[in-house]
């Protein structure tokens, strides 16, 4: 575990109740992996399921946590990143209460300060949401 619930908010800009990632499990040049538990007090928990915006935000925050962690490892401060675009979005399923979501980010391309990543989150190996994101890093 690289970052946990207690210290991940030192790396990502989001604060409660908008934090949609609990733990950063791994981060390397190929991508990042995180986990997140569905809780009843989540602002996107509705109709007994965690809704799509939370899952998309979970992907974006995993990217932020991963890049932030890598920045810190090389002695820098986490840079601010923005979602530039989301494409190829597919929603397959929504997780229920107390589910653990595992999110996997793969780096696809980088051009200057724009990163293209593929994000997927899973619950018990069931694919929930997949998309590509362009992240602009300041």
């Amino acid at each position, binding site marked *: 575990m690289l970052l946990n619930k207690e210290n991940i908010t030192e790396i990502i800009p989001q604060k409660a109740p908008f934090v949609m990632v609990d733990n950063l499990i791994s981060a390397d040049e190929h991508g990042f992996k995180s986990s997140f538990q569905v809780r009843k007090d989540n602002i996107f928990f509705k109709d007994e399921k965690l809704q799509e915006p939370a899952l998309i935000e979970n992907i974006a925050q995993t990217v932020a946590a991963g890049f932030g962690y890598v920045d810190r490892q090389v002695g820098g401060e986490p840079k601010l990143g923005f979602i*530039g*675009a989301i494409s190829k979005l597919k929603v397959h399923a929504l997780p229920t209460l107390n589910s653990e979501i595992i999110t996997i980010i793969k780096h*696809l*391309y*980088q*051009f*200057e300060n*724009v*990163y*293209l990543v593929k994000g997927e989150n899973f619950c018990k190996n069931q694919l929930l949401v997949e998309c590509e994101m*362009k992240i*602009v890093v300041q």
Partner: protein
Amino acid sequence: MNRETIIETVKDFLSDEFEVDKSKIQPDANLQETLDLDSLDYVDLVVVIEENFGFKVTGEDFVGIATFDDFYTLVEKKLAEK
């Protein structure tokens, strides 16, 4: 790959990716304006270049690339370096 093939290949994938009529892709036309590229679109351009020609381009490679003709020359040069 000769220049003619490069031009046809580039026209095919650029018109498809950026939804531009092939007739607008002329040698002296401005690449950025014709394709309506913003900074985010350049990632897509990098992706389709690698998919079609098998090499990566960087920001430095685009320095001095204004027209499609410049772009064809860049592709020719990169292919020769492979």
